[in-house]
């Protein structure tokens, strides 16, 4: 058995019993990376040197029996979160050489718990996309079929976890960027409640929607990482002053009698038959565990994509204004200031990022603001109310994570609208701010993973983790590994 195949809990046991050393674990992971990364291309930057530096102190702490949930555990970080002194690119040319002089809150919390940084993973530029094809550097491959995309925007993180290039990873989710690629790569991905995890140090795409979460090999690892990264942070005003439970405590508890809402709007035309079947089978499986499925309605679902693409792009158009060539990052000179701005942004940003900046700039412009941005905010309120209403009658909501399994590289690259539909089941969750997890729930006839999405009440990640864990423990999907 290779160490890199293990999950966090298994590795924790071996490390704590000193049956293996942190050095051996790090070696094993980098050997795996050497073997498969050429085909997967999950990373933008590998941080082996950093990892080896972190291994020593972690081992020492283990030897001294000091506490630390993640002591010696190799974890990858999506390259839109800042780790001090390590290049953070957002997979954009405009930040290709940017080295942050500060640490994000999530990585500093991981650090306190002794994690080992494996590397920074690829994403769609500034987290804008559903396939990693919008990366300014390269497209990551789906480990289950390297001709296919891993999903996005956290495709680098999900592919790295699926390919055993790390034990777990952090992703960020603005409209499905953790859950959709987790679904397509057959791993677990949790988007916490908005405000549960500090965004300080996460390079902003759409501030009111962005949320960092874990990508793991199974549900209990997700709970472990949630324990580390959750909680109020004084550096992020939008992080909520809400108590953080021990998310692992609820795992294994009974799900009998829980009401599971299945929204009728989430089984639509154009979905892959195998996806529909897997999800329906999963609902039956959860029912067999004693939970009670109930058909529900989320009536404003149809407005979600339009609403999302107005609000997210509006915020993005402002969030990305700082990349102007003046202070840091890439600069393309010009004959005057305006030309320098234009040259820098024209050469530094990719097509999708420019498209969204223009869309958002338009939506916020005077004369259009009321019709677009303001209307979208109102629609967002309705969508949020849909969820609040539904979650009064049911305990969680279960849906497919993505309408399709992983598609071929290039298949939707020229059709942004088609691409935007990849997130049709995940986007509403961000608009509502509620937590949701994607877990493996089957495979298509092409042997591609299918994901099940479980959505919970605000700050009730526990219930979705509980159901996800119960389901996972009653199936074998999460144990399958891609052949690489």
């Amino acid at each position: 058995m290779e160490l890199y195949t293990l999950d966090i809990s298994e590795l924790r046991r071996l490390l704590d019993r000193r049956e293996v050393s942190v050095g051996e674990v790090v070696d094993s992971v980098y050997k795996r990376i050497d073997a498969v990364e050429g085909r997967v291309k999950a990373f933008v930057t590998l941080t082996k040197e950093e990892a080896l530096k972190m291994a020593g102190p972690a081992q020492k702490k283990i030897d001294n029996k000091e506490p630390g949930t993640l002591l010696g555990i190799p974890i990858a970080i999506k390259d839109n979160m800042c780790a001090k002194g390590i290049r953070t690119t957002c997979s954009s040319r405009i930040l290709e050489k940017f080295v942050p002089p500060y640490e994000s809150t999530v990585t500093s919390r991981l650090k306190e718990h002794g994690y080992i940084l494996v590397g920074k993973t690829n994403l769609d530029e500034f987290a804008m996309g559903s396939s990693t094809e919008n990366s300014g550097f390269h497209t990551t491959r789906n480990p289950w079929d390297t001709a296919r995309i891993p999903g996005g925007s956290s495709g680098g993180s999900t592919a790295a976890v699926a390919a055993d290039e790390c034990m777990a990873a952090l992703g960020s989710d603005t409209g499905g960027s953790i859950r959709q690629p987790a679904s397509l790569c057959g791993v677990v991905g949790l988007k916490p409640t908005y405000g549960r995890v500090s965004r300080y140090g996460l390079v902003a795409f759409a501030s009111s929607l962005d949320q960092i979460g874990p990508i793991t090999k199974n549900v209990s690892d997700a709970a472990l990482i949630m324990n580390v990264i959750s909680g109020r942070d004084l550096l992020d005003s939008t992080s909520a002053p809400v108590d953080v439970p021990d998310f692992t405590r609820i795992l294994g508890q009974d799900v009998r009698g829980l009401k599971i809402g299945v929204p009728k709007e989430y089984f639509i035309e154009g979905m892959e038959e195998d996806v529909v079947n897997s999800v329906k089978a999963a609902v039956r499986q959860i029912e067999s565990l004693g939970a009670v499925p109930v058909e529900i309605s989320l009536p404003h679902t149809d407005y979600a994509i339009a609403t999302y693409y107005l609000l997210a792009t509006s915020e993005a158009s402002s969030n990305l204004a700082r990349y102007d060539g003046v202070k840091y990052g890439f600069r393309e000179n010009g004959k005057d200031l305006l030309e320098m701005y234009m040259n820098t942004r024209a050469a530094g940003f990719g097509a999708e990022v420019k498209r969204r900046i223009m869309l958002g700039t338009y939506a916020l412009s005077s004369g259009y603001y009321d019709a677009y941005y303001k209307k979208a905010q109102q629609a967002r309120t309705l969508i949020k109310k849909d969820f609040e209403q539904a979650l009064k009658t049911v305990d969680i909501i279960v849906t497919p994570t993505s309408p399709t399994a992983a598609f071929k590289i290039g298949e939707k690259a020229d059709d942004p609208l088609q691409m935007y539909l990849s997130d049709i089941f995940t986007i509403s969750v961000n608009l509502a701010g509620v937590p949701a997890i994607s877990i493996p729930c089957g495979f298509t006839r092409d042997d591609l993973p299918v994901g099940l999405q479980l959505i919970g009440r605000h700050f009730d990640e526990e219930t979705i983790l509980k159901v996800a864990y119960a389901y996972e423990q009653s199936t074998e999907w999460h144990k399958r590994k891609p052949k690489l």
Partner: protein
Amino acid sequence: MHGLPVNMKYEAVIGLEVHAQMLTESKMFCGCSARFGAEPNSQTCEICIGMPGVLPVMNKKALEFTIRTGLAMNCTISAYSRFARKNYFYPDLPKGYQISQYELPICGHGHVDVIAGGRKRRIGITRIHMEEDAGKNIHEGRGNYSFVDLNRAGVPLMEIVSEPDIRTPVEASEYMRKLRTILRYLGVCDGNMEQGSLRCDANVSVRPEGRRELGVKVEMKNINSFRYVEKALEYEIGRQIKALQEGEKIVQETRLWDPATATTQSMRSKEEAHDYRYFPEPDLVPIMAHCKWIDAVKDGLPELPDAKRERFVSGYELPEYDADLLTSERAMADWFEGAIRAGAGPKAAANWMMGELMRFLNEENKTIEGCPLKPSQLAEMIKLIDKGTISGKIAKTVFEEMYRTGKDAETVVKEKGLVQISDSGAIEKAVDEAIAGNPKEVERFKAGDEKLIGFFVGQVMKATKGKANPQMVNELLKKKLGG
């Protein structure tokens, strides 16, 4: 097109937008020092430089300062308020947007009263909101390069927006002075226009007197001294009236005041105006100011200039003019009341402060805060006058000596032998000598030239080195000259 009749009377309609830098220790959204004058970029961090991934956190003191100001200017404080982003590109604006307030400012619907041309005018305050300052571009110096200093980026500002209630340049400058006085009373802004901690933009239009409908508005920027508030407005109002008289149309635009030429120049037209694309700042949660806290801030307000002035008039029976001057600075009013507490009569203290004290301070370019004299020292000196120990005239010498050396009045009087001569024998001797030594003048006096009494007083004072009790000298002279 024909111009409007040359003899037609015009009225200006003016609204001011005043930016006040707050005297907080740290910046609006990060922990960097907000002090003025440090080495370029030495007071910056990843947040105020606008690094990728950073987030703002509101400075609570800045909120308190703004609420304090709102309360002092009779505003309503919003229970629910939000920050908004104002988007535009400029090198001194590191994030590409300024965090400001737009739809839901923290304070609104207030007013301040000013007295201009002897008339009391109430100027409405539309709103007061918080925002962050931008950095500074530096173009002088090194060849083709420009530099950016971000020390100022993120320094907390209040923007105080008036209603278009101002009608004359004098009202505008009185309004500015009033704002400055209130801000300084509250300790929220030092009010230094030259250093840019208080800045003024103006919206100006003119219309024929009696007409209700507003003329086309011109925005004026860069009015950065009290002197220029009136000058710039006078120029701009004159320019607009002349244009109308000549049949031109006023163009809606932004004009820059140029103090060097004392004119305004067009900066950008309405078409070139920025579309700032304001939207609610998603990185900051809405501000919910609790009533209890607002009440506590209200309770902590100092006595404000208007109330203090009224109290000085009614309580100390000072003339309006004196009260106005003494309450223009809180420190001055405090100094005055310090003297009263130490036993000085109010009018005497006011006269000495507005006369000698101000003169000495002005000569040295000092403010009352830097005054080497203590209020009690002035009070002791005034008591010596009241007791007749020194004359008012001698007191001027005593005052100067006190001011220069910091010594008490009594010490100065003793050391310099300045005690007033009230010994009638000594004075009589001097009077007799003055009469005996100037027979011609005695003749003229007796012939009816009574003004010569002053001459004799002068002679006596000269002989006694000014120390003779003037009242006694007068009485004796009159008696001896038979006047």
